[in-house]
């Protein structure tokens, strides 16, 4: 692995069939054309960028998580955590105001974790689980009461392991999440996007693919825009697409339609 990075690469080898298609004389003349090497400074700059990218990744520090680094996704974690905390506190305050017997049983986290309609029915041990030691900061009223920590973790990781612990939800609860939803990363993403800042692909430079539509769907949207004559919007969307999926082939009909139509 300690190869000199500037050692010239081996000439590409072609299969026999390929060589037959490109005669040797053409290959020789092609290679005889003068072609410079990348300047040393450029080599150094790129290698430095490559090292810096993994170095910052290897020692993630809190003070740089929100900084403007095109290589980092730390902002997502910070934004998600903040959003969940704000939501938790808001719900706590709402439940405190609305719960009729809140003065008698000051268990704010229980209120946050379980919907008001189910509080009376909740067994004491369940209520206790959410009292001391279970802060409301990371709780959502849409997360059922049985195992909030596990549920939240399942939502964060997108795994299904904790979802099976979810308790039944009463009919009174508006828009409850199902086990399937809790385990579904797409649902989780929607929950995050509800609370996190709007993603700005152009500003970030290195977008999170999970936060974007699939390339096919995105290209289809762009195609529709171009077909409807919204060329400027289509162009901008195509640029954003390129930024997000630099290696994804653009269909030729889109390449042709966009600048011409």
């Amino acid at each position: 692995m300690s190869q000199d990075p500037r050692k010239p690469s081996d000439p590409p080898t072609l299969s026999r069939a390929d060589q037959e298609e490109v005669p040797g004389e053409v290959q020789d003349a092609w290679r005889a054309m003068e072609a410079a090497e990348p300047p040393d400074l450029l080599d150094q700059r790129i290698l430095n960028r490559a090292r810096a990218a993994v170095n910052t990744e290897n020692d993630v520090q809190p003070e740089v998580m929100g900084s403007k680094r095109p290589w980092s996704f730390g902002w997502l974690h910070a934004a998600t955590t903040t959003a969940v905390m704000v939501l938790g506190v808001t719900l706590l305050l709402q439940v405190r105001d609305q719960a009729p017997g809140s003065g008698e049983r000051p268990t704010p986290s229980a209120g946050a974790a379980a919907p008001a309609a189910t509080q009376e029915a909740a067994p004491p041990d369940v209520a206790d689980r959410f009292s001391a030691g279970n802060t409301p900061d990371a709780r959502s009223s849409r997360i059922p009461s049985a195992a909030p920590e596990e549920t939240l973790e399942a939502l964060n990781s997108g795994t299904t392991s904790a979802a099976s612990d979810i308790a039944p939800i009463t009919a009174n609860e508006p828009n409850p999440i199902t086990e399937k939803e809790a385990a579904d990363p797409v649902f989780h993403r929607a929950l995050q996007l509800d609370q996190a800042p709007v993603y700005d692909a152009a500003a970030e430079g290195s977008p999170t693919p999970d936060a974007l539509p699939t390339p096919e769907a995105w290209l289809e949207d762009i195609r529709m825009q171009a077909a409807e004559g919204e060329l400027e919007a289509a162009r901008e969307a195509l640029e954003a697409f390129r930024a997000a999926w630099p290696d994804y082939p653009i269909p030729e009909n889109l390449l042709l339609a966009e600048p011409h139509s």
Partner: protein
Amino acid sequence: MDEDSDEALMLAYGKGDAQAFETLYGRYRTALYRYFQRHVGDAVMANDLYQDCWEKVIGARARYDARAPFRAWLFRIAHNLHVDHYRSRKPTEPLPPGLTETEEETTLPPELLADPDRARRFRAAVNALPEAQRDAISLRLDAGLGLEDIARVTGVGPETAKSRLRYATRALKQVLQP
């Protein structure tokens, strides 16, 4: 997977091994640089595109899927940058003739064929090729890609890629005749 393979190195880099990137970089720096040189006359612009390409590789390291050969993946990024370069340079104009659509026999200008200097004649012929054909032969000879990969990289069918390569080869062979 061979641990020295391009794909293994890229995966290693994705996991934080900077040395793996350096090895990969050493393998492809010349080929990639020449690819941009063939397409962009301006050396400064070629440098920019070359750097952009590696930066995209760096940025996409965690997303790299080893099922895709690294070589083809790298040159797909390069090809896309090449297309974007034309688009951003003259966004309101059509793409250069042949960048996407030409599958026609190339007719070289007679004055080009009359140049007694064989090397100069060849170079002029390369520059006179439609972009798509030059792209195809550059991906073959500079990048070392096979037909299927050329098709994948340029987003066309294998037959189209084959035609482009055939026409380019025929035109270049023509200028090498004594």
